[in-house]
């Protein structure tokens, strides 16, 4: 019995090894074409577990990189992570392929990025959504999304007829909770301005506790979380975290109630055309802009480690148009939003979140 087990274990390891080798072979030609390009600058990128097709920040970052690379006439090398254990090996493989700039997408890659940046001081790194690494060759690309989410909260409170709006997140990490903080504060601002009493379920700013699905997969858990918000009478739902809004959309369809959603990262009206009629607006986080800025700077030899902070002021974050809802929102809402936006930029309306970039 034990010999069979051991044999089988070796067979399993051997086949895994073979797969790893094959995978290694597959990526090699990409490196060759890249170095054969017009310039020998190679920008590279590692995704987190969401992949570059997540209709969210991995995808935005990837598109920013592609746009910058096309303009520079170079071929980028990209690699996707399937799990957290892939982060370090993926970064290492890009280092081995001679990348000059490695952009790591996501807060979850901070540890792996830091380790690799310290080990390879000649390679430049950029990391999205994390500002914890202080090194001469690491540029953080961060976004004060609380500012834009504040506007979204104001819109939600203004739109709600049941007087309840809800939010839930993928995982409780700062790049997610910063949206929820801004959203709740925006609702509170609306209540203060209009003497209303719109309630937010799913996130408590003071206690920093709330509703999370435990991951960024659009599965049954995310649908159940959205259903829970609907059961609490919420008629505007703000799902924060990659593709989990897809599950929320199904919960809304099941309820057959006039419930709307607010998208995150990209303008969901455009990126998710099947369900565009459910999106009141979206909170934009222009990851692509940040990535292409940093890529262009690195190609021009002007890379530095001062963080790129996306704000309302530099259009790094913002609120998408209302599209189909522009006739359904209260008249004068856009004017009020413009005033609030100016106030936030001027600092007269303070928007602070424990997760805001320092």
């Amino acid at each position, binding site marked *: 019995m034990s010999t069979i087990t051991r044999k089988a274990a070796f067979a399993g390891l051997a086949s895994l090894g073979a797969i790893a080798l094959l995978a290694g072979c597959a990526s090699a030609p990409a490196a060759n074409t890249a170095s054969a390009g017009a310039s020998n600058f190679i920008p590279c990128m590692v995704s987190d577990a969401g992949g570059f097709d997540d209709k969210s920040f991995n995808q935005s970052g990837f598109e920013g990189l592609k746009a910058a690379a096309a303009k520079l006439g170079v071929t980028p090398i990209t690699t996707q992570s399937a799990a957290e254990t892939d982060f370090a090996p993926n970064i290492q493989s890009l280092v081995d392929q001679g990348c000059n700039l490695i952009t790591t997408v996501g807060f979850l890659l901070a540890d792996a990025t830091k380790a690799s940046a310290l080990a390879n001081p000649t390679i430049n790194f950029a990391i999205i959504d994390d500002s914890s690494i202080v090194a001469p060759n690491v540029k953080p690309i961060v976004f004060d999304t609380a500012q834009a989410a504040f506007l979204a909260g104001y819109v939600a409170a203004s739109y709600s007829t049941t007087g309840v709006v809800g939010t839930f997140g993928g995982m409780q990490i700062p790049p997610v909770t910063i949206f929820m903080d801004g959203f709740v504060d925006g609702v509170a601002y609306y209540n203060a301005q209009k003497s209303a009493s719109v309630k937010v379920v799913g996130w408590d700013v003071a206690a920093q506790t709330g*509703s999370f699905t435990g991951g960024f*997969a659009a599965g049954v858990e995310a649908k159940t979380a959205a259903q*829970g918000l609907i059961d609490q009478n919420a008629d505007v739902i703000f799902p924060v975290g990659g593709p989990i809004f897809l599950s929320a959309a199904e919960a809304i369809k099941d309820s057959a109630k006039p419930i709307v959603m607010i998208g995150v990262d990209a303008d969901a009206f455009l990126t998710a055309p099947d369900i565009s009629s459910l999106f009141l607006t979206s909170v934009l986080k222009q990851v692509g802009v940040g990535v292409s800025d940093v890529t262009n700077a690195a190609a021009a030899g002007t890379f530095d480690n001062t963080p790129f902070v996306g704000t309302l002021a530099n259009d790094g974050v913002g609120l998408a148009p209302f599209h189909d809802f522009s006739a359904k929102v209260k008249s004068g809402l856009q004017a009020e939003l413009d005033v609030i936006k100016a106030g936030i930029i001027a600092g007269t309306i303070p928007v602070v979140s424990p997760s805001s970039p320092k």
Partner: protein
Amino acid sequence: MSVTTTNSNNASSAASGANSPSQVIVREKEAIRSWKAPISFAVFAALGVVLFWILGRDAVSNFRLSTDTDVIQLASVDLPTQLTGIVISLALILITAYSFWLSVVKRPTPIWVVTVYGVLFMVGFLTWAGAGESILVPGLLLGAVGLSIPLIFGAMGGIISERVGVVNIAIEGQLLAGAFVSAVVASVTGNAYLGLIAAMAAGMLVSFVLATFSIKYLVDQVIVGVVLNVLVLGLTSFFYSSILTENSSLLNSPPRFDRIEIPLLSQIPIVGPVLFRQTLIVYLMYIIVAVVAYALVKTKWGLRLRSVGEHPQAADTVGINVYMTRFWNVSLAGAIAGIGGAYFTLGSVGSFQKDMTAGAGFIALAAVIFGRWDPIRALLAALLFGFATNLQSVLAIIGSPVPSEFMLMLPYVVTIIAVAGFVGKVRGPAASGKPYIKG
């Protein structure tokens, strides 16, 4: 087994009864004093006293018992949080005392006492956690059932496979394959029923690999299962990224099964909308659980299946084809798990997403073991897990003082407590995981 022994004893005593009718064999019964139930009760009663009474919050907890669409509208119930907490704590203490007394006189704590205790504790907990808030009870239960369905299908597949002697670690892979294939087939054909059949075929395909390697080539079943899970995850993620996202309107927008309301039954307050306003897949689940539970112990198929899983040599000597029995039952297990996969796409979310099963197959595997390889117990284990997951979700929404990360652990903690407290030692099918070599 014990039934057979008793019968033969009766038969022999009846046979010898002609000579000496007074010689009836009386079996001595050894009473065992078990402290497990009272001790578990005491722990929870102490927790109840601390939470509901000492930390009791002075507010009113509102329970809504009907959804907007119900015909019979029950009024919502307002419970004063603190008073309810005190009453329930006292009731818990009384039941604990009763259970201790039962153990002292060497009698087991009956299952209805455990059930009453569990329900009381839950009501107390919800009242405490929902202080000043409103909880929709059918919503809580509906979400619990929704989260349990893939686990139940997976567990049924696991039970059939393991009872016939093949360890099925590949449930996760079967669910994921079913979810992927059903989404693609249903999208292309525009027919959800074809999607469901394709999901069964996909689950079966995964099973074919598992069965071939473990039965014919005697490869370690755990390793084949793990490799299959990784393989299916890799394949579906690859096809999702490379093909499905490019043509999502053609390949990844399947029609979903509509909800079917069962007349009368769906009007029962609270449980009606939860159990009888569901999609076809859920009704299939009721049928499959009932059929598996009955057929495993009452039919020729079940007897053969279990004999192959317990003692293949003995089964072989009486002419049962061990290899074929194993192969086709493992395939059947895959088909059932495949339906669970179709639930993700055709029953719930409405499109395939990368790694959308998110470990449900492993929880289903746990439900098989917690359920002691018994369909009904596994069903209860899966429901318990689904309930705890949804409870976590609902409490997080209404605002709970506990950090989110700890709340996410709740389903696992509840499962561990349930297993340690009420299940105890488990014994699987004797030949499960052991390849059979004839000769």
